[in-house]
């Protein structure tokens, strides 16, 4: 699944660890989500969306839409 996490982080000047701390996951988890190796659960996707003030589909793209 593609996502805009790296862009959104860069816009705020956040590291992976910074983002991880804000959503309650490890830096490795953020890296895995960023690189598409791990699809976040729905609750985590909602936390990310709330943090960035965006809708889930504005952050994640499954390539179908």
């Amino acid at each position, binding site marked *: 699944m593609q996502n805009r996490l790296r862009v959104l982080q860069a816009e705020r000047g956040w590291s992976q660890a910074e983002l991880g701390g*804000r959503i309650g996951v490890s830096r490795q*988890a953020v890296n895995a989500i960023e690189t598409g190796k791990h699809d976040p659960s729905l609750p985590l996707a909602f936390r990310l969306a*709330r943090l960035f003030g965006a809708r889930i589909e504005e952050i994640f793209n499954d390539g179908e839409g």
Partner: protein
Amino acid sequence: MMAKVEDFDGAASGEALERSRRRRKYWLLGILGGGGFAAGFLSGYTQADQLFDPAYKWPPALGVGLVIAYLVAAIGGGMLYSRYTDEFARMAQYKAVALGAGAYVIVYPVWLLLWKSGLVPEPMHFIIYLLFMAVVLIASLFYRVH
């Protein structure tokens, strides 16, 4: 522990929170590892001469004490550890355990059938347990890194 986004609308930076969570996890692992080492040391120190002699029985008090320590560490420690673990690490762990179970399902019947055919020694539960743990450990590391 999973925290909600709203918890972070304050002074603490995400990096500090992530570091703190990681530190708590390492402390817990250190305590569990230290407990395991102490249990192993105690067993080895008191039963050194007959540690692996199948005919020799350990004192019941030692066995019961070790079982209680193990249950506390495995159940209590596991519950605490899961609070410091995020979904990515948990998923890696699930996959690793599934792989370990797959190894068990394959290895044990094959070994049993070969033993029944007189080709290999009788299956050893300790070896199978070690194999399961080794597969889980290696797979867990693999899934976390890749």
